């Protein structure tokens, strides 16, 4: 068990003023069996009306509207998380089926199919979904190179596989695609890691009635240095800042995350 | 309880304007057509000039055909009727099917007139339907503000056309009086100074037609109207 202090800052800069800006933010860490959040503070700029709710995947959301013209939209979330990875999130098997099927972002094509094919003999010999997932994670880790700037938020798993490069989101999507080919329910997780930088992404696989988190980018199990923000079928379900607005022109997003142990 | 969106209030106003435009331009056109029978000159040129529409017509026959029935000519009577229809068709629950159907019938009759041997005769049916439409507006619409929006649009358009065509002052003054009575019942925000100015302008001699046209189009201050809507 660890106690972590986190600061999340997101800023969206518009080239020209935006107005009638509707937003939904998923940047507040979840409260679940593994982590509890205390002393949370949230600030959104500019003036707005907003409300909170929990979405269909169990993620906390803040949604609302900023009517006035603005060239900058920002959110700050601060707080402390108590994380304990010895505990598990449990779920009955008949309720996780929706995570077993491919989405637009995870749908495999020839590249992922070939990649999967290479492991098929080994996979057939395993009967535990967790073991299978670990094997695929290892394969993935050694076959691909972490390369920022090549892929974007809309890059599919298949596309990343073809490029043989990508960031944490792409690793997560490729893992989801492979696990789903094995009929293993699995979900995308957006979160933060100890240190300073951007947000991170990993996955959870469903095995023996529990959700087990794995970090394919680092080829390891998730421990108490990770803070989970949200989960869903793919990155789209975990979109941190979703918005529609009028005007705005070109946008540029800055994200800054600091997580330290206390 | 009647609630009305900014979009619908706008459509009601324009339905009033376009229905009037169709009715009065047919009337004016029929007069023009009658005059032209005795004249060899290209009399329709003045007609276009007064109405402030481009004279794109090659001959007297071309003018009669296209000014009345050419859907591709944005200034034709048919085009204006289509605009009236476009506004009416989205207002069924405000004005009622029994009222809306007369605009629909006017469109059918316009098509019949277009293909008829005696198009001018057939245009009478289009006018009949417009008149029936106005009758239904008075007779069957309960909401005073819905009714007034249509009628206000109609009055405003009529003054505009009468002024353009330099119709007799008495007629213009009569329409101005009706407009004064109507505007307050629409719930629209309007420019009271402009209204007072208009009332003055229709009294002075000689009449400054251009200035009246200018003032009448800015009676409903666009910005104010938008501010009221959002």
């Amino acid at each position, binding site marked *: 068990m660890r106690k972590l202090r986190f600061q999340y800052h997101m800023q969206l800069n518009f080239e020209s003023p935006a107005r009638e800006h509707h937003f*939904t933010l998923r940047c507040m860490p979840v409260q679940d069996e593994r982590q509890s959040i205390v002393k949370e503070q949230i600030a959104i700029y500019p003036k707005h009306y907003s409300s909170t709710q929990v979405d269909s995947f169990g993620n906390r959301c803040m949604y609302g509207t900023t009517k006035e013209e603005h060239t900058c939209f920002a959110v700050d979330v601060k707080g402390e998380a108590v994380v304990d990875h010895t505990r598990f999130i449990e779920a009955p098997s008949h309720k996780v089926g929706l995570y077993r099927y491919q989405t637009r972002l995870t749908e495999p094509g020839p590249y992922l199919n070939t990649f999967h094919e290479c492991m098929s003999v080994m996979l057939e010999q395993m009967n535990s979904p967790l073991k299978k997932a670990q094997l695929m994670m290892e394969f993935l880790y050694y076959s691909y190179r972490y390369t920022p700037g090549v892929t974007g938020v809309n890059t599919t798993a298949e596309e990343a596989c073809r490029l043989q490069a990508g960031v944490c989101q792409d690793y997560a999507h490729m893992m989801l695609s492979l696990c789903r080919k094995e009929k293993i329910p699995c979900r995308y997780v957006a979160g933060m890691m100890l240190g300073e930088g951007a947000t991170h992404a990993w996955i959870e696989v469903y095995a023996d009635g529990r959700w087990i988190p794995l970090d394919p980018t680092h080829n390891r199990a998730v421990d108490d240095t990770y803070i989970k923000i949200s989960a869903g079928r793919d990155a789209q379900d975990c979109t941190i800042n979703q918005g529609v607005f009028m005007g705005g022109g070109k946008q540029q997003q800055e994200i800054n995350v600091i997580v330290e142990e206390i | 309880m009647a609630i009305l969106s900014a979009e619908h209030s706008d459509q009601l106003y324009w339905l009033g304007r376009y229905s009037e435009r169709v009715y009065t331009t047919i009337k004016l056109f029929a007069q023009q057509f009658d005059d032209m029978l005795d004249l060899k000159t290209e009399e329709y040129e003045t007609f276009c000039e007064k109405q402030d529409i481009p004279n794109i017509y090659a001959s007297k026959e071309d003018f009669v055909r296209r000014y009345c029935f050419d859907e591709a000519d944005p200034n034709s009577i048919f085009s204006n009727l289509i605009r009236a229809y476009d506004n009416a*068709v989205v207002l069924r629950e405000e004005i009622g099917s029994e009222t809306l159907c007369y605009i*629909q019938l006017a469109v059918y009759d316009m098509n019949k007139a277009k293909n008829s041997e005696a198009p001018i005769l057939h245009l009478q049916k289009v006018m009949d339907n417009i008149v029936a439409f106005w009758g239904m507006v008075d007779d069957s619409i309960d909401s005073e503000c819905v009714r007034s929006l249509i009628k206000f649009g109609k009055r405003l358009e009529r003054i505009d056309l009468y002024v353009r065509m330099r119709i007799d002052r008495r007629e213009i003054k009569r329409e101005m009086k009706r407009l004064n009575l109507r505007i307050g019942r629409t719930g629209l925000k309007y420019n009271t100074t402009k209204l007072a100015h208009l009332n003055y302008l229709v009294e002075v001699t000689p009449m400054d037609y251009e200035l009246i046209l200018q003032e009448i189009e800015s009676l409903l201050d666009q910005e104010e109207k938008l501010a009221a809507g959002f």
Partner: protein
Amino acid sequence: MNTEELCKYSDSVNELLARYGVKFGIYKNNTFKEQLFPFDMIPRVIHQKEFDYLERGLKQRVTALNAFIKDIYGDKKIIKDGVVPEEFVYSGSGYLAQCEGVMPPKGIYSHIAGIDLVQGKDGSWYVLEDNLRIPSGASYPMIARDLCRKGLPSAFEKYHIEDNRNYAKMLRRTMDNVNTGGHTVILSPGRYNAAYFEHSYLAEQTGAHLVTGNELVVENDWLYFIDYSGKKERVGAVYRRISDEYLDPMNFNEESVIGIPHIYDIYRKGNVALLNAPGNGVADDKGIYYFVPRMVTYYLGEEPILQNAPTYLPYYEADMQYVLEHFDSLVLKDVAEAGGYGVVFGSKMTKEEKEQFIALLKKEPRRFIAQEVIDFRDIDIYEDGKIVPRKADLRAFVLMADEPLVWKSGLTRFSRNPDSFIVNSSQGGGFKDTWVMAE
């Protein structure tokens, strides 16, 4: 009654329908066109006793479908108990994960259902399709009835025919039942929608306001209609005639410009009713159709009153075998398509087409269902002065208000092409009134 007597008035009734703008829109070569919906004077007559049977069956079926949707987005018992395979739920296009865990006001998902039925030569009825998203068509028989009563007063005097003009009242009752406080509106994508006539006619007849997305706004967790003086009026029920996808750009298709941002967020909180509920597509998928009779037994513990057309799921090994062996006598439907598209007859394929289709079927068995071609009972229509037989179906409307209500009429659509089984208005079909008549 004498059919010739009926047909005498055909032209004048169709003229009246044109007068009231009874049309539907279609897109041809990317331009919008309005077409009159051809009306046939000869009604489909269903006797009271037979309709009672249909009514019981329809109520039962829609009650079970509603229970299914509630279960899928909630407890998922039917999956746990293995009655419906999970794959049919989650890989169908109608399932929306965003609807997980959302309970609509009073637990009603399917407020307005259109159930398409056909009658076989032996007189037995079969359900062909359930439409639980935005079924349209009720307005046409409503207005046609009004005009027929004018044209044929004697028939209505002589026989006891259920008045179907009460549909607006039924619909109002259904909307009021779930209204969370405030106005009731009908949300239309706009006048260039195929069913715009219906949207505007139902608004007029129910006294609801017809709106487009830009006239509504979500503020402080409530939905408002903004009137032209800037005043906000609360809206408690939205009978939306736009599809789930376009309803809310913040929750569904981000590109939608006809929806209302955040409307689904406040619906989730129970602050507004949406009719029908988003996500209903999970139950009217052509693949799920196969399981509806089982749902009736599963949820209600009753024997299904209405039967499906005999259907095979190539997904199951045994059914695939049957389909391959009897290919020429079956009709195959792509589960993702609607409106009469994606329907092919085994007997009408060339050898090459057949081979291609079977290859596709083997590759994606989940994508297709196969049905026996029902020997339809033809129904008479009046065409060019003659009475001729045509294929027809019946769309029955089931409304879920404080109790299930079945409209004692329906939309009878017929194919104008003598060789066609496809009755959809978008493919040139016409319609008839449906008379429920005392013996």
